[in-house]
């Protein structure tokens, strides 16, 4: 295309680099049509890589001159997506985009900021240093805190009351033990209205993330020879230890899983077609529910270098940031094994679907008190009440056999039952 305007310059809008290992992105929507004005830093196009969405701000103010990559097309990083005819010397429009998801307030380029940071002071309130620090440490959204200071100012006591209500409260009953502890509200983007289930199978009406999840799950079941093996574990020691450390049982399960994966490296691997590769690092994926919006699996890279406390902190952090849509693209890539823990509603068993190209996924459900037969050192049996859980592992029969899966689970149980 050529421009007939003599006093304008065409500026490229390119696909940004959204993470060091992300090579391409998909156009989700153009915010402005050709011929419409756009202000610098205002979002011109929405893009997506896997499950991470982002926005590309206009590099200059001007008029969108042309669109080179249409919606749903996937292109490499650096590809020119469109061009803006810049207003030469003209001041950028001062009226921000009225669209609710405008990135006009975010001065950072999309390359450095694949997700929109929550606006820290949407209501113009000011927060003292200690309030900001506590809020940051505990992931509290200050906009949602009711202030009791002068003029509604949020005081240290106000944010502490919220934190203590959520954080230092007694650990929830074991049967709702899960990573999905209620975090303080994070500002979420306006939700897509719940789609009416489509009559056809075209997928029209499903949100993008649901379509992605659906494709991935179906592809996994079509690809892998998925089997599931279960084992019962006495969680008494984990229960005592986690209460002492003030962390969740999931952190102990994650730590024991990581250690057991080191013992059984065959399960810490990727299988692509006929290419099977064991991975030296344990990069542990943790499934995090986004509620109606779907599910995401952020990855704790090199999880084998973390202690129980370290894992607990990382799990809390990624869960919070996942829900705040603050994950970077790199943080959902590279997983070698996944744990899913949806036991908060009391369910006790599931058949999780393997996260391709991994070869195993562990399902940690509710911990429930049950009468069990306990054998003492002299071989005498008695019945006791123990917090029990059923760990289920789905594994790919192409990569390994049931005996190895059973050995893995037995070793995992041994670790959890001998936690000190």
């Amino acid at each position, binding site marked *: 295309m050529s421009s007939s305007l003599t006093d304008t310059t065409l500026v490229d809008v390119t696909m940004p680099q959204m993470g060091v290992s992300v090579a391409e992105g998909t156009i989700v929507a153009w915010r402005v049509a050709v011929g419409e004005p756009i202000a610098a830093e205002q979002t011109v196009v929405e893009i997506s890589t896997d499950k991470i969405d982002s926005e590309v701000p206009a590099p200059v103010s001007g008029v969108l001159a042309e669109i080179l990559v249409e919606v749903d097309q996937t292109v490499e990083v650096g590809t020119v997506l469109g061009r803006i005819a810049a207003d030469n010397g003209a001041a950028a429009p001062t009226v921000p985009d009225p669209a609710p998801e405008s990135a006009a307030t975010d001065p950072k380029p999309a390359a450095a900021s694949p997700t929109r940071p929550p606006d820290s002071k949407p209501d113009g309130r000011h927060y*003292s240093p*200690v309030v900001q*620090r506590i809020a940051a440490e505990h992931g509290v959204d200050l906009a949602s805190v009711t202030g009791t*200071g*002068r003029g509604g*100012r949020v005081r*240290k006591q106000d944010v502490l009351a919220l934190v203590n209500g959520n954080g230092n409260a007694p650990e929830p009953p074991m049967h709702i033990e899960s990573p999905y502890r209620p975090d303080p509200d994070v500002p979420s983007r306006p939700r897509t209205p719940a789609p009416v289930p489509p009559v056809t199978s075209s997928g029209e009406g499903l949100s993008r993330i649901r379509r992605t999840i659906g494709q991935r799950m179906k592809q996994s079941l079509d690809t892998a020879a998925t089997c599931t093996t279960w084992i019962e574990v006495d969680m008494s020691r984990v229960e005592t230890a986690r209460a002492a450390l003030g962390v969740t049982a999931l952190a102990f399960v994650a730590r024991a899983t990581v250690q057991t994966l080191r013992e059984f490296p065959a399960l810490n691997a990727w299988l692509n077609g006929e290419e099977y590769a064991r991975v030296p690092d344990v990069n542990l994926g943790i499934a995090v529910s986004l509620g109606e919006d779907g599910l995401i699996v952020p990855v704790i890279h090199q999880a084998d270098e973390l202690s129980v406390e370290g894992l607990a902190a990382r799990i809390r952090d990624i869960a919070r940031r996942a829900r705040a849509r603050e994950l970077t693209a790199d943080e959902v890539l590279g997983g070698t094994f996944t744990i899913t823990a949806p036991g908060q509603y009391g369910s006790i068993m599931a058949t999780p679907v393997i996260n391709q190209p991994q070869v195993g996924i562990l399902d940690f459900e509710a911990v429930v008190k049950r009468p069990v037969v306990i054998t003492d050192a002299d071989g005498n049996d008695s019945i006791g009440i123990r917090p029990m859980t059923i760990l289920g592992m789905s594994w790919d029969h192409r990569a390994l056999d049931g005996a190895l899966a059973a050995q893995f689970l037995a070793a995992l149980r041994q670790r959890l039952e001998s936690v000190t």
Partner: protein
Amino acid sequence: MPTMTYLQAISSALRDELRADERVLVMGEDIGVFGGAFKVTDGLYEEFGQDRVMDTPLAESAIIGTAVGAAVVGLRPVCEMQFSDFVSCGFDQLVNVAGKMHYRQGLAVPIVVRLPSGGGFSGGPFHSQNPEALFMHSPGIKVVAPSTAEDAKGLLHAAIHDPNPVCFMEHKHLYRRVKGEVPEGVYETPFTARIARPGEDLVVIAYGAMVDVALQATEDLDGAHVEVLDLRSLVPLDRDAILSSVKRCSKVVVVDEANMTCAAGAQVAALIAEHGFEDLDGPIVRVATPDVPIPFSPPLEQAVLPGVDRVREACRELLAY
């Protein structure tokens, strides 16, 4: 333990030191036969004689200068400025000679300069000042300021034992108003702060006569738990204790009886602003005497000195912030 007034505790420390260590001597204007303007040294002349309890001319420069010389050759002089206001006449000997001696010549100057300071009794502009910040600003000198009888004795012992020049700020208004149990014999109070009352909603940082003002002002403050931190020592300043109180309470009122500008509390506020920033939940509030001379007039003097009402109001405002 015997109960003593603040003044008796200081006398007791001097007597115990004179008895225990023959290197110790006291010197000053009218401190011998007359027993001192405030009778702090009453009876010492009779017990220890004129060589160890020396009356001096009305020349603060000579008093401190003589003390420095005596200290350098191995004695441990304790000199009294009759009123701390008059230390300005001995400023050069204290700040330049005593304070820099160790740096320049490697010689220790173990002198104590007792500075009866503070107002509240219509002493007027020459007899009511709080000059401690002048010496905080001068490297080489330690500055302590007790608020209780027990600390008055313990800090004086520690000051006499210290190898550095120490300004001992004794508050005249506390002399006969503060009483308390005082351990017998020689003991040292460390040059660190003391939590006069623990709390977690707000901390009032004070020293000297302002500690009692802070305690009274916050005793019953709408149910708030107000901490009172008694600095006791201004040089060295107990940074850890200050920051720990700030971390716990997050709201700070700093009280000085001295004039506001560059007072000890200004240094405390600066320390908190720099190192306690992330623990603050409100502005650092200062209550001090405005930058004016202390008036003779009793109502005017009460108007300029930080009193219970002013401190209480400042705390109330900050608590509500």
